C-alpha cells in the first residue's frame, strides 16, 4: 500500500535519512520508533509530499508522492508534531477553515466536524478559542483537524507530546478505533510503550537509518535472550550471587538484581537450582525484554536520556 524505496534526504548540515526502504500494508498500524533527531519527522514530511527526497521514491496506493501531486493529499491525513492551529479562532472555525480545503460539500463537512468533535470529547468546547484549551485538548483537536476528509492513510507525528496520561489513553483509543475502521496508520514516537501498545509492526530508526523492523515479538526475538529475571535484593540473594552468575550476567541495581540469561539457559534448571539453594520463588520475577533493551542492544544507547 505504502512503499518507501531507497529514500535519502540531506539537509545542509546533516543527512536526515539514509537509504530508507519500508513497505507498509493496508490497514496496518505501523510504528516508527526512534530517538530525537532520528529522522522520523523528515520521513513523515516526505510521505506527505511536503519535502522532496534527493534519492528514492514513495508511492501510496498507485500514486507517487511528490510536492506537486496535490491530488494524493486527499487520501492522506497528517497530524503534525507541532500543534498547527489558529490559536485565536474557535475549534469549530479551525476545523471549517482547514476542512474546506478538501473540497467537501458544505453539509458533509459540517456533519464530519460535529462527529469528530464528539469522538474526541471536544463538542462542548467547539465555540471556545483554541488558546483557552489545555495541552491535551489542543492535541486532540490537532488530530481531528487532519481527519475531516476521511483519509485512508493517517500519519501521526508524535501526537501525544506533552499530554497527560488520561488524554493519552483517550487518543490511543481513538486511533485504535480508526485503525479498526480500516485506516492505515503510521505513528512515530520515541516511547517504546506507545509503539508496543499500538503498533502491529514497528521500524526502529536511528541516525536516518532503519536498524530493525518487524512485529513487536519479531523485534524482541532479535535479542540474544528471551527473558530477563528480576531478583529481589536481600541477604540470601546477595549471598547466592555466584550461583546466579552461572545462568547469565547479573546486573546490580539499587533495589534489585537483574539476570540476563546466558546461552543454554533453561527456566526449569534455573528454578530447580534456586530451590536447592533455599531461595524463595517469590523473590524472582520473569520480565519480558522490551524494545528499549533492543535499542540499547543495537546501538549501545538508550532511546531517551
Amino acid at each position: 500500500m505504502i512503499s518507501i524505496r531507497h529514500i535519502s534526504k540531506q539537509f545542509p548540515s546533516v543527512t536526515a535519512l539514509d537509504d530508507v526502504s519500508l513497505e507498509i500494508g493496508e490497514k496496518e498500524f505501523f510504528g516508527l520508533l526512534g530517538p530525537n533527531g532520528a529522522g522520523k519527522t523528515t520521513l513523515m514530511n516526505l510521505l506527505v509530499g511536503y519535502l522532496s527526497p534527493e534519492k528514492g521514491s514513495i508511492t501510496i496506493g498507485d500514486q507517487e508522492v511528490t510536492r506537486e501531486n496535490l491530488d494524493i493529499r486527499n487520501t492522506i491525513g497528517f497530524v503534525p508534531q507541532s500543534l498547527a492551529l489558529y490559536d485565536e479562532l474557535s475549534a469549530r472555525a479551525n476545523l471549517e477553515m482547514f476542512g474546506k480545503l478538501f473540497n467537501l460539500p458544505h453539509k458533509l463537512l459540517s456533519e464530519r466536524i460535529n462527529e469528530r468533535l464528539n469522538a474526541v470529547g471536544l463538542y462542548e468546547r467547539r465555540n471556545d478559542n483554541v488558546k483557552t484549551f489545555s495541552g491535551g485538548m489542543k492535541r486532540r483537536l490537532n488530530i481531528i483537524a487532519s481527519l475531516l476528509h476521511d483519509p485512508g492513510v493517517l500519519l501521526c507525528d508524535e501526537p501525544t507530546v506533552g499530554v497527560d496520561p488520561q488524554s493519552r489513553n483517550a487518543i490511543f483509543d481513538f486511533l485504535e478505533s480508526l485503525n479498526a475502521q480500516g485506516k492505515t496508520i503510521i505513528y512515530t514516537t520515541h516511547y517504546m510503550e506507545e509503539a508496543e501498545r499500538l503498533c502491529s509492526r514497528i521500524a526502529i530508526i536511528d541516525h536516518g537509518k532503519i536498524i530493525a523492523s518487524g512485529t513487536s515479538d519479531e523485534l524482541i526475538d532479535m535479542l540474544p535472550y528471551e527473558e530477563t529475571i528480576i531478583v529481589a535484593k536481600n541477604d540470601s540473594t546477595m549471598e547466592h550471587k555466584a550461583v546466579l552468575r552461572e545462568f547469565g550476567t547479573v546486573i546490580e541495581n539499587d533495589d534489585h538484581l537483574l539476570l540476563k540469561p546466558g546461552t543454554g539457559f533453561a527456566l526449569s534448571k534455573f528454578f530447580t537450582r534456586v530451590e536447592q539453594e533455599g531461595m524463595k520463588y517469590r523473590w524472582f520475577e520473569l520480565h519480558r525484554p522490551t524494545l528499549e533493551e533492543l535499542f540499547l542492544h543495537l546501538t549501545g544507547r538508550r532511546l531517551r536520556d
Partner: protein
Amino acid sequence: MKQVLRLFNNSYRIFFNDRVAVMLTFIVPMVLMYLFGAIFGSADSGPDRMPIAVLNQSNSPVAQQVVATLDTMKAFRVIKTYKDKQGRQVAFDSVTIKRFAQTGGAAAAVVLPPDAFTDTSLGLKMKFYYDPKNEIEFQVVQGLIKQVAYNQIPAIINQSMQRQSEKYLGTKSGQAFNRGIASLVSKYFHVDTSLIMNPSKAMANWMNTSTSSVQDSSKKGGTNFFENMVKIESQQVVGEQLKNPWATRSVGGWAMTFLLFTITASSASLFDEKKSGVMLRLLVSPVSRVHILWSKYFFNMSLGIIQLFFMFFVGWVMFDVDVFSNVVNLLLIILAASVACTSFGMLLAAFAQTRQQAQGLGTLLILSMSAVGGAWFPTSFMPPTIQSISKLTFVYWSMDGFLEVLWRGSGIAAIAPHLLILFGMGSVISAVSVWGFKRGKVFE
C-alpha cells in the same frame, strides 16, 4: 483558483477575528488623521488671513476691479506697501515687490502689469511671484485670484468677443469662428508665472497645465468650446475645494503610509503561519505554495483597496476632501497603489529570514519611502537630487496620482502614466518576490 479563493476567505476570517488588526487598519489611522487634522488644521483656515503682496501697474478698469475684489476678500490680507530702512511705508514697484515675496513677506506676490488688460488684449495678464516653499499657499492664492478674475469674465468677454466677431463676421466659416473663440479662451488668462527662488525649476503647477490643456482640446472644434466653458466652471470648483488644500494633499499620504504598514504586517504574518505550523498544515492539504502566495496577494491587495478608500472616505467626512467628483479615477489609482504596496509586502516576506526582520526592514523602508516619495510633504520642498530619487518610489507615483485626481481633477489620460508605472513596478517587484520565495525561509 478555488483553493486560492478558499484561502482568501480564510484570510478575511482571520483578519476580522483579530480585533487588533482591524483596529490598526481602520480605527487607528482614522484617529491619527483626526489628530493631525486638529494639529495642522490651522493650515486649512490659512486663507482667512493670508498675506499677499499686490501691485497694479495697469489703468484698466478690469485690473482695478480685480484688485478691489482682492481687497474685500476675507481670505487675503492685501499688502501694497513695505517698510523701508527708515521705517516709512513705501508703495511697491516691480523690483521691490519681488524682493518682498523673496524675503517671505507674503505667501505670494501678484503683479498686474501695465498691459494687464488693454484694448487689444484677448485676456487678463498677471504675474505671480512665489517661494516654492510656499507652494501650497501659492496654489490657494492662485485659485482664489482666478476666482476673482473669473468674476470679471463678463466684462472681458464682452470686449474681446466684439473684436473677434468683427474679425470673423461674414466669413461664415464656423470653423474659423470656433478657432477664434478657442484662441480667445486660451489666451484669456495669459498668466506669466515665474519662480523667484529657483527659476530653473519648471513650473509644472496646475494653473499652467490647465491653461494649456484648454488650448489643446479647444482645437478640436465647436462642441469643445462649450466643454471648455464648462471646464472653466469646474476649475472654479477646484478653486473652492482649495479651501482645504492641506487635507486634500495629506489624506493620500497618510493613507499610503498606513497601508504600507498594514500590508507589511499582513505579509510578515506568513512567518507566524510558518511558526505556528499552520503553513505546514495548509501545505499538506491539497494546497500549493503558489496558492498560498496568490491568496495572500489578493487578500493584501483587496485590503489595500478597502483601507485606502476608507481613508479617503474619512478625509471626505472630516475634512471635506472632494472624493466623489472624480471617484472612478480615484479608484483606479487606489487599485494601482494597492498592487504596488502589496508587491512591496511580498518582497519583504520573500527575502526576510524572520518576522522581526520583515517588520524592522519594512518600517525602515516605509518611513524613508513615505518621506522621499512625498507622502508627508510635497516633493517640491526637497532638493533636486532627492526629487529625482523620489520618482523611483511607488509612493511618489501613488501620491502624485492621488493629487492628479483629487487636486487637479484629472481624467484617465493624465493618470495613465501613473497607472502604468505603478502596475509596472508592482509586476517587477512581484516577480522578484516570487524568485525570492523559491529560496526564502517562509516556505522551506
